[in-house]
């Protein structure tokens, strides 16, 4: 039998991650940690808000994590990672100077240029602020392109609030409206208490036909907030969410993230509410 094996020179494995160094790391909460990465090959990366990376720790595995920095062509990227299992726990043990493997960007993301001239409503719940932040920062960096910008953010307790410095910055800006609420306050908390839908009462009614909403958070929150958005008259096609599914390959092959005939890793994770409705199993 012939022993020859073929190794096509052009075959590059889409599973091989690029090495990236942690250049900044911060504990946001007990469970959530913030990282900024730079690629070791110095090639940088270009991505759209809403896209994600497969973060790899050899020997443990991979986990899909949204990029939370603003979109475009950049040298670095940021993520906020919640320790939820093996890979994410292992990532939490890493610090500045350590390297991880990154594959991506993956997923569809959303080109915000297409929304030029529209009003933007961001609704983020919990860790959903991570992917949402990429949209928010992208919008704020290109502030002149958009109409009104409104940011609603809800978290369980004041201790769970992420990106404190961003929140302060957004609060201080006068070209956007920023409201935050917590489910349960503590002694020092003077802000809103209550679920995120209560914030809808506090904002001016948007120009419904001309508003794009980004609703990103846990499935339960999504259901209730979509209701609010629809009640305000927003169009199904203009309400966007990010779906979470189990993922292994990120290449539309392994089948884990499949919802009916879409692969979340390729066709998503950003879907309009119109699409989510069609998927039925979406939420």
């Amino acid at each position, binding site marked *: *039998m*012939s*022993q*020859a*094996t*073929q*190794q*096509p020179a052009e*075959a*590059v*494995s*889409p*599973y*091989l*991650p*690029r*090495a*990236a160094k942690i250049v900044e790391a911060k504990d946001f909460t007990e469970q959530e940690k913030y990282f900024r990465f730079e690629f*070791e090959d110095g090639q940088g990366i270009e991505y759209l808000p809403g896209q994600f990376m497969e973060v*790899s*720790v*050899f*020997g*443990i*595995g*991979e986990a899909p994590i949204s990029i939370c920095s603003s979109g475009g062509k950049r040298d670095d990227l940021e993520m906020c990672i919640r320790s*939820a*299992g093996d890979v*994410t726990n292992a990532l939490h043990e890493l610090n500045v100077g350590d*390297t*991880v*493997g990154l594959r991506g960007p993956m997923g569809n993301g959303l080109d915000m240029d297409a929304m030029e001239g529209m009003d933007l409503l961001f609704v983020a719940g919990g860790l959903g602020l991570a992917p949402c932040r990429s949209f928010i920062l992208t919008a704020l960096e290109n502030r002149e392109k958009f109409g009104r910008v409104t940011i609603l953010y809800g978290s369980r307790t004041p201790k769970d609030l992420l990106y404190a410095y961003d929140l302060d910055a957004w609060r201080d800006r006068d070209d956007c409206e920023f409201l935050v609420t917590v489910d349960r306050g503590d002694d020092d908390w003077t802000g809103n208490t209550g679920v995120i839908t209560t914030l809808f009462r506090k904002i001016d009614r948007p120009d419904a036909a001309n508003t794009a909403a980004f609703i990103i958070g846990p*499935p339960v929150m999504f259901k209730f907030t979509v209701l609010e958005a629809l009640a305000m008259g927003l169009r199904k096609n203009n309400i966007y969410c990010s779906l*979470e*599914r*189990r993922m*292994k*390959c990120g*290449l*539309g*092959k*392994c*089948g*884990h993230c*499949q*919802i*009916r*005939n879409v692969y979340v890793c390729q066709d998503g994770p950003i879907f309009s509410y119109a699409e989510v409705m069609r998927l*039925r*199993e979406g939420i």
Partner: protein
Amino acid sequence: MLPQILPKDKLADFARFLMGEYRLAAPVAKGHQFAFEFIETPEDVGRIRMDYDITILPPKKFLHPMYEELLRFGGRDPATGEAPIQAEPTVILGAHPYDLHAIATTDAAMRAEPADPYYATKRDATLLIGINIRGYVNDEQFMADMRTTEPPEGGWDLFMTDLGDRYYVEVGSDAGSKLHQAAGMFTQAAGDDHKAKQAFDNEKASNLPKRLPYDTRYLPELMSESYDSLLWDAVARRCFSCGTCTNVCPTCYCFDVQDKLNLDAASGVRRRQWDSCQLHTFAEVAGGENFREHRSSRLRHRMFRKGKFIYEQTGKPGCVGCGRCSVHCVADISILEAYQQIADEAAVSAMEIAAAREESQ
């Protein structure tokens, strides 16, 4: 590329010729059933069974192996990773037409951008030699409905039909043409041979009646109609969620990826292995949320993939009608029966079905 003749008593010689140039896989008996195995020794050649009814696992196991190394790493440092993408030149001898169709389907799925180089490399290094069927071998088959009784348009190299003392060999590619020339034991088919092949085809056609009450062009639509049917709950009552149906399915290709560590607990391999949408962990994420927690939703998902999604994605059949999933199901759950049942209850007018039936005849 004209059809060729291979005398039956030359089959062993042909197999030995193939073994000289390629890794050869062919059907052999496995207990009372059959399986594709590598033919490695002269003794193995004698075990080849071109008259097999159907194999337990389809030939996908050579192109999309049940365990496949994706990466090797020396430790946590991502710089230590490397990707061994390679393939040995291989011949799969004796694939039935429905399996050739299934390979065409996985070709389309795995080569869709972003293409999977592991699959593609193996596939490019593999020659397919088909063998014809005479009819159904069990009550669960419905290849005629799925239009997979003849080989697909392309994608195979040689296709053999058993004419008693000889094989009538159609040539499907340049590589196939080169192969039979190099083997040097084929002659060009003549008038009698063509006649005999025609007779074979006629008989075969009569052995392959349609088994569905509608044209499968309507299958995707019928599936959509049945999304909320109670049928899925009813069938799921018996389903063990054992994953047998997907493992034996020639068009199922879902997989899991896991890191395997060496004893230094640092170096190891990242490998993929077949996974099944029927297993309850398949759609479960960290924190315990399970997006297809109920057996019935998993079962429905499989049936939808087979009857609708894969077809919509690849334009090729998501189910080739081979019947493996139903034959091997411990609980006797039959996909053919499900396809029949959805027609009964779907909101498709009787006329539409009648029209479809007429068209398909």
